[in-house]
């Protein structure tokens, strides 16, 4: 594991105007997304890079998740 300050960080956002609340991201990457109410949100703005996040983003049926490498 890379320490929190050492490597690149990802900025992860969910666009609520696109999210249909499928629950897919929150179930497959529960440390990174939550679904409380109709839309998912990213848990925190900056995240350690993790394949779980990019996989969830690639599975999102409405491409509502954006992952930006900083």
């Amino acid at each position: 594991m890379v320490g929190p300050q050492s490597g690149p960080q990802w900025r992860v956002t969910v666009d609520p105007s696109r999210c249909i609340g499928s629950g897919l991201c929150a179930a497959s990457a529960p440390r990174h997304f939550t679904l409380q109410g109709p839309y998912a949100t990213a848990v925190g703005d900056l995240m350690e890079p993790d394949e779980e996040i990019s996989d969830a983003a690639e599975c999102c049926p409405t491409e509502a998740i954006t992952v930006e490498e900083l």
Partner: protein
Amino acid sequence: MTAPPEASARTYPFNNPAGLDLDPLYAQLRATEPLSRVRLPYGEEAWLATRYEDVKFILGDPRFGRAAVIGRDEPRTHPRQQDSGLLTMDPPNHTRLRKLVAKAFTNRRVETLRPRVTEIADGLLRDMKDLGDRGDLVEGFATPLPIMVICELLGVPFTDRHNFQVWSEAIISTTSLPLETIMEYMGALHAYMAGLVAQRREQETDDLIGALVRARDEDNDRLTEQEMVELLAGLLAAGHETTVTQIPNFVYVLLTNPGKWRELVADPTLIPNAVEELMRYVPLGTAAAFARYASEDTELGGVLVKAGEPVLGSLGSANRDERFFKDPDTLIFTRETNPHIGFGHGPHHCVGAQLARLELQVALGALTRNLPDLELAVPADEVPWKTGMLVRGLKELPVRW
């Protein structure tokens, strides 16, 4: 705290396979026994969740999974137990496999198909109209439309449909076929798909089969050959059996609920909302399926579900939960929000949901536009229903226009 569950398990499923009614026992269970014990024709006893909140919970919470089904005698309505594929996996393995196909089914990608799907739909209705003023909507329209669409998307020759339509029934059959026939058809479907994969190795294509073959050949550990063939065969079968069934169900419900057909003819802008409302309203499944196994003791619906126990969630019951939806038994096309779970929820949320939505919207659009005076050609209680399937639907839908 609600009443403790009945000591002995109830026999399940409750729904009558002929028709689209939700058995009244569901409403009773939602009120008095939200988690109850059920025994299915095959497999171990299970919990049955009937409330919206609980069903959504077992579908979306990581403490409930599908991978644990391997090696267990899954509660089910059909003799064959599924032992591979997306619905027997949990994240992260599930997500890794699913992302390979998910991109082809996002709403942006699916939306690019709309003109072509509309053209197919209008063409099929033109052909029906050329033959007279009445016909069977199942055969003339609802069956060919989704099959043509999934064939074009995957890259499967439509001319082979008579074979794979027969084989695909194996995936959604419960008792309509004997087990040996189911196994034989599954084998035939996989062999057929393996043949199409082999062709892509000779000549590249830009359809989904071609894209998956490239993804696999570039990076071998992502996907075994067998996983790829099964994934594609599953998409071909799921990609048409469900929508083929749901289009006639929707039309039947619209024609038998007074004023509902005319409402859409008069205002086609209601169609997208009507599709969501019909997805909520129509309990497609004969029974709840694909039980989730608890990985730890969890309190749910007033009972303690122990680690290792299976829980079935009824989507049809959840979608009629009066705790969640106002007037749940009434079709209302103007609901402000409609978070139904007709396409499931969580990691296994239907991969084809956006495609199915598009097909259903285009189908209702084309029908209301081309056949505004559509009506049943036989009394509503005389239309023939299929039985022995995972999903409920019409054998024929005789209509006139």
